[in-house]
């Protein structure tokens, strides 16, 4: 289910602190080039942008030759500046409905390997709020927008989303990211043995212990991966209460370890368990509020996972609504294959 549109914008912060905006418009191809770029007074930069966008399209599964996408920069960035590259790639994807992002989008990043979907870095100093940052420490490749691991990286990281509900303005989807790398023989000699195998640097001690227990239980259920991984867990928003994040954490861990089918979009899950070692998913509170939140946030390709107990109480029309948007929903009792 792809819902293309006619125009999309994506901005990028320039080195002088101002904004450069990429505007993408879609029109019938009519025998013209698939991508057309224009930058005021800099045809060379336009050619470079066309190259970037074409390379990034190599990572897409679906190709439609009927459209032409026209990309334009509203002003000329300073010489040598490349942070607009990510904005151009995202604008090109947004206008064709390949990705859905919460707008307005501000993104900074450049890459020498767009054909692999990798984002190498950014020139922007610091990390301003609300800016999508490219680079190994932030958005490392395009698939990570949906939480998927980079197929070429030596560290596998995956994200899953969960509804954060407190009844206030800040309600939204939070994410949890699990990164795993093999424990032994990584050869950098930084003394793995002393490290704790599961670390969650942003969390307080109680929550850290809880995260370790959950992962240990879920991996026990899995039968594999109980040892042998060095795991890092990060949360998008570390200050929250409740334990309904557990299901999302478990899913992110399974995806990161290559042991779960993949969704095309994000995995959005809510649920807890007192028995992860048995793979059981138990119910959590705030069904109505969380369903409303999910109905608002879900985009094409997303996979929504809820506890089995919620099935009877789901708001009428939620399933159909999600399906119409290209997302899917399942109420599960147990993790694992079917």
């Amino acid at each position, binding site marked *: 289910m792809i819902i293309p549109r006619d125009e999309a914008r994506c901005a990028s912060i320039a080195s002088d602190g101002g904004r450069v905006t990429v505007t993408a418009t879609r029109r019938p*191809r009519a025998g013209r080039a698939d991508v057309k770029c224009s930058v005021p007074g800099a045809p060379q930069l336009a050619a470079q942008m066309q190259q970037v966008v074409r390379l990034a399209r190599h990572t897409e*599964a679906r190709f439609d030759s*009927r459209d032409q996408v026209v990309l334009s920069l509203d002003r000329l960035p300073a010489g040598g500046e490349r942070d607009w590259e990510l904005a151009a790639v995202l604008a090109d994807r947004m206008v064709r409905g390949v990705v859905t992002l919460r707008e307005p989008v501000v993104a900074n990043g450049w890459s020498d390997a767009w054909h692999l979907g990798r984002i190498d870095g950014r020139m922007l100093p610091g990390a301003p709020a609300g800016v999508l940052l490219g680079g190994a420490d932030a958005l490392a490749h395009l698939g990570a927008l949906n939480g998927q691991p980079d197929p070429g990286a030596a*560290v596998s990281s995956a994200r899953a989303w969960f509804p954060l509900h407190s009844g206030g303005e800040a309600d939204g989807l939070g994410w949890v990211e699990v990164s795993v*790398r*093999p424990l032994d023989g990584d050869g950098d000699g930084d003394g793995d043995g002393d490290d704790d195998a599961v670390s969650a640097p942003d969390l307080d001690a109680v929550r850290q212990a809880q995260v370790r227990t959950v992962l240990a239980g879920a991996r026990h259920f899995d039968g594999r991966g109980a040892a042998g991984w060095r795991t890092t867990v990060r949360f998008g928003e570390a200050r929250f209460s409740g334990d309904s994040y557990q299901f999302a954490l478990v899913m992110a861990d399974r995806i990161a370890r290559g042991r*779960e089918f993949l969704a*095309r979009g994000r995995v959005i899950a809510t649920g807890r368990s007192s028995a992860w070692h048995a793979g059981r998913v138990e119910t959590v509170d705030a069904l109505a509020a969380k369903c409303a939140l999910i109905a608002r946030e879900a985009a094409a390709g997303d996979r929504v996972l809820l506890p089995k107990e919620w099935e009877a109480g789901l708001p009428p029309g939620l399933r159909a609504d999600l399906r119409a948007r290209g997302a899917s929903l*399942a109420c599960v009792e147990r993790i694992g*294959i079917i």
Partner: protein
Amino acid sequence: MMMLGSLIEKTFGRSLRQSAFDATRLGRAAIALPAPNGLTVPAACAAVLVDRSGHSRRLAAGARIAVHDGESAWCVHPGPYACELLPFAGAPELGLRVSFAIDASDPRATHQRFDLYLASEAACSVELAAFTDQLQNTLQRELAQGILDLPPCTTLEEWHAFRSGFNQLMYTRFGITVDDCVPVDLGATRDYAATLQARHAAQQQAASEVAAPAAAVQEAALPEAFVPACEDARALRRLFLELPALMCATRMAVLPGDGARFRQQQEMLRRLDLVCLSVGTMPALALAAPGQPLAQDEQVRRARHSRRAAAALDEAWALLARLKIAGEGPLDELFEEGERVVANLENETAARRLASVPLDEEPA
């Protein structure tokens, strides 16, 4: 077609001569082997004979293969075969164990799909391992596009929907019937941790070899060597042989419900017909005009377009599979998808004809 034949012979000739016919491999490591003339078809096997224009006929076990002029013969073992497929490249420890059989002659069909596969894609023998890779690529592409769905925590209902789509896809695209398909844990044989470690080691090595980057690049490029002449010939052969069969099947797959749908289908078939014509009259890869050689990079560009046209052909087969099980279902969506696939075919074949890309057309 003569040119195609000689090219394929040049490319695969060595392996053709090397592999003497060994009936014991059939049904195990090999699905089909080229059979010498005069061979008696072994028990449980069938012979498929394909002439130059792609028409095929079958001989049952016990018959003696007598090749007519220009025909190639294969011995095919119907199986069953077992293989493991990886539905997602990013999830290497979770696979599907699939058991399939080569479809026996279907009396309703004028053209057996597997025979068409042999004619158009099998250069020499069909090995189980290579065939499995092809099945896996097809499956992964459909999943990535969201045509088949195998989401995290797949429910039983979703699994059944996946199975029916998968079975039909495999039948329509390759002419095989899937007998059984179950999810399996591949953790014991494909260790993801080891893969990640290997990647890490490779990256470290690449970082230390910055001094000699050229050599590293060359090494990395080797497995994906792109030989324009081979790629182009293979893709065009597929288009030439499969498009007519595809059109024929499309005509039968949809019972035109009303006038509008009928016209839509006719229009699509008409456009496919033109693509067929375009493929049949495709200029030679290496010539810009009669007697005038084409630059190497333009040949590469042409071959890329051929390959992309063949990819669109794969999508067309997948779409046909969906049409077959759609019934009265989402026909609008499928026809819209068909428009896209046909447009892609038109676009790529048209680009393949050009000797050079015109510079950017208009300034605005």
